């Protein structure tokens, strides 16, 4: 492992993502110290980094709503939390976002894997895929889709927008984002 870079976490694992490590480092710099979510293959590197980082309180939840409740509480308790979920789960947790996070004005950062886009091979993702951006727009919530922009700048500016708006905010990651 490269000792000079403390944010390299997956160096020893065969399946490593520099982008995921970079994102984790940005989270650390932004003070993130709590994470909860429901696993998704697209987010596996991010989840592994949360799991491997001793400074991070991490709970894998049974369903997305639970992750919303746990991280809302972490925020109440003075932590800076991140939620990771698939966009399918964004729909099942949508009422919890609407009825807990928005009225309580909670700046909670979501990393959402964006299935059901171009090239999707699983039919169960197509409807939610088409509706994902419109759901967030209709809720009036800030979001960005990662399209190989500078990931650090993108995450930082989203984080700033989130703190300013005091609203849940979303970074959408499509399949293959980590390469």
């Amino acid at each position, binding site marked *: 492992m490269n000792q000079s870079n403390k944010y390299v976490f997956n160096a020893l694992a065969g399946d490593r993502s520099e982008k995921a490590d970079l994102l984790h480092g940005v989270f650390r710099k932004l003070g993130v110290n709590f994470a909860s979510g429901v696993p998704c293959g697209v987010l596996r590197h991010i989840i592994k980094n949360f799991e491997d980082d001793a*400074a991070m309180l991490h709970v894998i939840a049974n369903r997305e709503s639970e992750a919303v*409740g746990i991280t809302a509480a972490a925020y*109440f308790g003075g932590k800076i939390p991140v939620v990771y979920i698939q966009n399918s789960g964004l729909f099942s947790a949508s009422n919890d976002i609407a009825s807990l996070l928005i009225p*309580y004005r909670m700046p909670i950062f979501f990393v959402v894997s964006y299935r059901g886009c171009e090239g999707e091979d699983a039919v169960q993702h197509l409807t939610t895929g088409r509706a994902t951006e419109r759901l967030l727009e209709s809720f009036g919530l800030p979001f960005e889709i990662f399209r190989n922009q500078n990931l650090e700048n993108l995450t930082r500016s989203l984080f700033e927008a989130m703190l300013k708006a005091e609203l849940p905010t979303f970074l959408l990651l499509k399949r293959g984002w980590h390469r």
Partner: protein
Amino acid sequence: MNRQEAIEVIMTTIGAQDAVVSTTGLISREIFEKFDSERNIYVPGSMGLTSSIGLGLTMAQPTKRVVVIDGDASLLMNLGSAVTIGNKQPTNLLHIVLDNESYASCSEERSMSNTAKLDSLAGEVGYQYVRTADSQDGLKRAIMEFGRGPGFILTKIELGGRRDFRRPLELAAIKSRFMLFFTRQNTRRLTMMFKGKTIFNASFDVFAETYHSVRPGYPAQLYADIKELCGLDSASRLLEIGAGSGIATVELAKLGGKIVAIEPGSHLATIARKQTKGLQNVGILEGTFESFESSDRFDAILAFTAYHWIDEGIKHRKVLDLLDDAGSLVLVWNSFFLSDSAVTAEVNKAYSEYLPDAYPSESSVAEVNEGVLAKLHRREQEVVQNSLLYTVALRKYYTACNYNAETYPKLLNTFPKVVEVPEEQRKKFFARISEIVGRHGTIVVPVLTTLIVCKKKSGFLHAIANPKGGK
């Protein structure tokens, strides 16, 4: 028992410092109307998430007790959360379910809790303390006997009662005051610690606030152990030395006895009075232990990270005079260690760089920890080796506390050796510390709580020679 009675028992029995999370519908609305407080968070929407929010709170603030007031239908809506709680084992979580076998906040439609053994289920998924209650007395007892969680109290209630409660609407404001309450952590004593030092008097109250927010408290199990080891009950008379702002006092009050708490700092004594307001069994006295006079004899004399500040010459003699022959002296200390990490190494370097007078050379984690342990050992030995006392219990509790760029400098600012450094120099040091911790995200501070319970040696020998009953 109906909902109104159950809520009244809960809200008047739980500790004054406990946080409360209440579920959707009439339960939250009734609590909001009758028991609204900064310690409450209501879950008016997102039905079912109450217990998840309780879990998240206990994880974020492991030294604070969190009481979740749930309903049967709400629990069933997010049953997986019980499994998560069983898995994470938050010892500071008490999950109370008001079970009327209905969606009472809608039109009293039947839920399915009538065919489910929710208490057995809680035990099976890993709750450590499971009780059922179907009377006000039973519920009160179940709450008072709760020690180490996660706890689950299935409370059977009848349908009916008022429905015309106001709704909590200003949720953003409720959030702000709750966050303030929740992060204003357990307190420690200030004037005792800094007696004789005038440096803080000018900004004392501000400083006291900071002290509240960053020093960790004591684990819930400690209080349960004190109760058991000293055999305390509602008739017991307790004397607390150096009560500070009353956080331990509030917890001791729950053990049931009558408490006299002495605090020499007038600001802290005022805070302690506020904290214990409404507790019939607590009296706060402003003054020093050295000058305290009483014709009463106490069943327990207790000092929380305070005993070492009392005048050496008189303290044991005075304790012996005030203690009942069968009474107990209870001494508790929190010791702060260093975690072996990259962030700690950088912080250690900063000490010698920025505060060379107080810290002339850089210390390793092992050296510092050995020093902390040696100091603790001296305090323990002073008691253990005293020929007039006999130590009957020595216990340790370990907590890892997380601090960030904002809270860690504040914690350091409560340590006497740092506090004595001139302000200008201290400011630069804290800026550097904040920068280091900010870069790493968090610093973990291991806290070791030590409990010593001892008896008067004469009283102990008398009790040994005159056993009650026999086998």
